[in-house]
């Protein structure tokens, strides 16, 4: 019931929750949900809403009709609709668990429809660890309300009070063994009603589905060669498209010769529009060969427009356009000692293993695009604008791709496919990017500089914290057509959207720049950079990774300065009980001992953050080994503790956090985009190495702190900051020297050791 599920509950809402269907549905004013954060993308353009007016839970606020989320067919089959996409995070399975639980239908019988501008609710982007909060909350409440409506219908049919009926296995059952299947209870527009602010949610102690590990529905197909990805789509008559990308950002096509390509076997069509070149062929390999030949016949005018990579931090600092005050210290506090450090990180790629891909087809004047974008609705608008067509002439359907971890080439390849489909005479067109295109042209996660200055009192406690960061915005998703790469290179090019500085609770480049620690005085400034020396956009966690890396490695430095154990030092400054709980649990499970010394060339590191300061809590302890001669780092073992509120699929959460920590370790140890004054030079896996099996820990345990009855907090990104920072601290602990520039490369480690 509500009282258990909503900590902020009032007596009134308890009454609403336990009342009969009709009563609870009439008590619209009895809203007592926690202040709902509006469904939003991970960028900063929303404000949390604390309203007196009834606010529908999760994405129901935007799409209130129950049958937009749940439909029951006459044969009893239940279909659930979500606007959030499966990105490999297991969201499909988790959402189905939620629906099965509240609707009282067997998990196996559910069908889930994922984002499709023609079918599903518009839930914006699947990003920012929002899927469970937005869609999970909407589906859960919608399912509970549908269940109660069906019980109400059964009560009328059977002439028994609703209180004597209950839902089970897709039917409503009464005390005398009477049962009516859901299918027989639905009629016409029964579910075509607006959701109510409160729902009669099931109590966590009666859960049979939520909170229980569930094998993911997509894995059997993926391990047996089933059609699982947009890359695997093969529509009748489908052509293969490839695009010739310019050699460098902003390059202009000045010479073009397609005669040789057109004469190649299988080539159906060559397209040139401004500096956009594409080719269509019957077979994929033919398209690739033709792309190469076209590339040879193309001449480009390039500009030396990229910054000096050796001076990147200074360049970025010199580009500040505006300052945003993220947190204003009302009164600076004077300590007895002060410590300062500055950190840098390079540009990074998302680095999906499968390069971006899309399929598009024009039929009856409508362009349908199958895409692994995180936002089918925004892409629909942007692609329509690019094509100069009304929005209803474009339909975008999500199909899984390779993991993206943010805004990679998905949307751009969708635009490529949409453009090429216009000249394909109704035939479907599949476009996949080449590896070097993905590496060079996906929007990068921006380079950043951070600086922190802390004052300690006589006992080493932090009394004043002054933090600065230099960064672009971390999200340039569509948006308008100008956010789509090919659109920027057309004869009539579209301009990228104007960037703006916004300070928001969830944060952007400034995400997690305010420590959760209770310092008497904190001041945080975002030196905001408007221009994009390299096209940049959202990568898992946005600024959180770098800000947490800075805060948490600096905390270690301060602990050392104060002669304190790093875990104890953190706890000393942490008041939030849930934060303390994850820190303590990770330390305990790791076997953390105050002032322990690691074996020779080994190091222990610890880090903590609450993602966005309002989502999941995560603490990570890590042991590493550093090979002194080479500077090579190996992870030895790790333990993490996570509080992600209510959990739908515990194994799904573990999988996400494990993966996040490993990925963050890769970011921290190896990764950085390289470029000369004109071109990006990290264009494959040899020039942009990532973590391989040899660096893997022997053990990495993720311990969950279940919080039944609390809100979903999302899990997808909480491991990034603490994961990277724990590795950083462990490296420092192993080599006894601090590094302030990411990545913590072999060269830098060797130099720091003096080997």
């Amino acid at each position, binding site marked *: 019931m509500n009282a258990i599920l909503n900590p902020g509950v009032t007596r009134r809402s308890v009454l609403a929750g336990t009342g009969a269907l009709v009563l609870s549905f009439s008590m619209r004013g009895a809203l007592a949900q926690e202040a709902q954060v509006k469904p939003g993308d991970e960028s900063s353009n929303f404000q949390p809403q604390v309203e007196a007016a009834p606010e529908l839970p999760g994405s129901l606020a935007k799409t209130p009709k129950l049958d937009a989320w749940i439909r029951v067919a006459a044969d009893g089959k239940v279909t659930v609709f979500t606007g959030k996409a499966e*990105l*490999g*995070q297991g969201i499909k399975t988790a959402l189905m668990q939620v629906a099965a639980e509240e609707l009282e239908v067997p998990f196996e019988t559910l069908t889930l429809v994922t984002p499709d501008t023609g079918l599903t609710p518009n839930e914006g982007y699947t990003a920012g660890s929002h899927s469970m909060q937005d869609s999970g909350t909407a589906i859960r409440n919608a399912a509970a309300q549908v269940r109660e409506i069906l019980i109400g219908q059964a009560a009328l049919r059977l002439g028994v009070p609703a209180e004597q009926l209950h839902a089970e296995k897709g039917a409503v059952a009464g005390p005398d063994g009477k049962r009516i299947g859901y299918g027989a209870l639905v009629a016409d527009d029964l579910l075509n009603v607006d959701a109510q602010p409160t729902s009669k949610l099931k109590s966590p102690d009666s859960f049979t589905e939520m909170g229980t590990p569930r*094998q*993911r529905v*997509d*894995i*059997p*197909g*993926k*391990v*047996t*060669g*089933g*059609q*699982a*990805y947009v*890359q*695997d789509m*093969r529509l009748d008559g489908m052509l*293969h498209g490839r695009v010739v990308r310019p050699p460098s950002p902003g390059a202009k096509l000045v010479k073009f010769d397609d005669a040789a390509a057109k004469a190649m*076997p299988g080539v159906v069509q060559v397209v040139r529009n401004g500096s956009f070149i594409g080719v269509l062929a019957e*077979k*994929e*390999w*033919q398209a*690739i060969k033709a792309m190469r030949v076209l590339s040879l016949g193309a001449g480009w005018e390039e500009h030396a427009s990229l910054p000096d990579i050796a001076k990147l931090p200074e360049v970025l600092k010199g580009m500040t356009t505006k300052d945003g005050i993220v947190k204003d210290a009302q009164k600076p506090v004077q300590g007895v000692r002060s410590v300062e450090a500055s950190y840098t990180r390079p540009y990074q790629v998302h*680095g*999906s*293993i*499968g*390069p971006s891909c899309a399929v598009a087809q024009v039929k009856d004047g409508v362009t349908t695009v199958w895409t692994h974008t995180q936002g089918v609705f925004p892409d629909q608008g942007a692609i329509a604008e690019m094509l100069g067509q009304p929005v209803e002439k474009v339909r975008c359907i999500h199909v*899984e*791709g*390779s*993991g993206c*971890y943010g805004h990679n080439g998905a949307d751009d390849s969708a635009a490529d496919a949409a453009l090429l489909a216009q000249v394909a005479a109704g035939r479907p067109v599949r476009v*996949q990017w*080449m*590896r070097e295109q993905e590496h060079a042209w996906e929007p990068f996660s921006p380079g950043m500089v951070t600086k922190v200055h802390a004052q300690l009192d006589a006992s080493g406690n932090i009394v004043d914290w002054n933090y600065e960061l230099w960064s672009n915005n971390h999200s340039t998703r569509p948006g308008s057509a100008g956010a789509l790469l090919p659109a920027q290179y057309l004869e009539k090019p579209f301009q990228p959207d104007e960037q703006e500085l916004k300070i928001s609770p969830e944060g952007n480049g400034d995400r997690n720049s305010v420590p959760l620690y209770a310092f008497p005085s904190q001041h945080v400034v975002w030196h905001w950079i408007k221009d994009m020396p390299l096209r940049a956009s959202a990568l898992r966690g946005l600024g959180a990774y770098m800000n947490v890396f800075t805060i948490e490695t600096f905390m270690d430095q301060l602990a050392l300065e104060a002669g304190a154990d790093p875990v104890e030092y953190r706890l000393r400054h942490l008041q939030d009980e849930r934060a303390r709980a994850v820190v303590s649990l990770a330390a305990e499970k790791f076997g953390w001992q105050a002032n322990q010394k690691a074996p020779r060339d080994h190091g222990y590191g610890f880090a903590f953050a609450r993602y966005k300061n309002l989502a999941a809590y995560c603490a990570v302890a890590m042991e590493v080994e550093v090979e002194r001669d080479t500077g090579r780092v190996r992870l030895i073992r790790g333990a993490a503790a996570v509080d992600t509120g209510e959990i739908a699929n515990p*194994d799904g959460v573990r*999988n*996400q956090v*494990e*993966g*996040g*920590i*490993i*990925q963050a370790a*890769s970011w921290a140890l190896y990764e950085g985009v390289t470029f000369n004054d004109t071109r990006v030079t990290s264009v*494959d*896996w040899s020039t942009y190495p*990532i*973590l*391989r*099996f*040899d660096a*893997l820990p*022997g053990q*990495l345990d993720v311990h969950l702190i279940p919080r039944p009855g609390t809100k979903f907090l999302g899990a997808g990104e909480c491991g990034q900051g603490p994961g990277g920072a724990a590795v950083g601290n462990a490296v420092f602990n192993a080599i006894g020297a601090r590094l302030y520039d990411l990545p913590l490369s072999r060269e830098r480690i060797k130099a720091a050791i003096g080997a």
Partner: protein
Amino acid sequence: MVALTINGEAHQVGAEPDTPLLYVLRDDLKMNGAKYGCGLGQCGACTVMVDGEAVFSCVTPVLLLEGREITTVEGLGTVEKPGPMQQAFIEEQAAQCGYCIAGMMMRAQSLLQKNPNASDAEIRAHMEPNLCRCGTHMRIMRAIHRAAELMRSGAGTGAARVTGERGS
């Protein structure tokens, strides 16, 4: 025309002989298992077995493969009857996006088929060429150990056509 034996079946394909096996599998034969990741032999998403050895299908032209025994993930079993390797990956839930996974399974298969008692260090070293961006490595390792167990005990229902060395 090129004659290929894939998962025990003979195929005649009308591909140009320089075509890498990957595109013949995906495009001509409409098989999903082998994935395009880099086309450069750098990531392993396209890994298949040729005569029991793990091979990057993206850089192996079909003209070199006539008369050789090619095995893809489709040859390890089916959804209904998963082979031990597939069974193990399902049991361990060893996938996030899963894009790298078929290649991982094929590389692991090539090792375990020869040596089902491979040590943890041997497995790691063997898996080194294959990349996973989701960070699923821990589970992949667990799944490979589990697959080895299943193979040693003769469990797993599918795997009818898992082939050994050439000519087996």
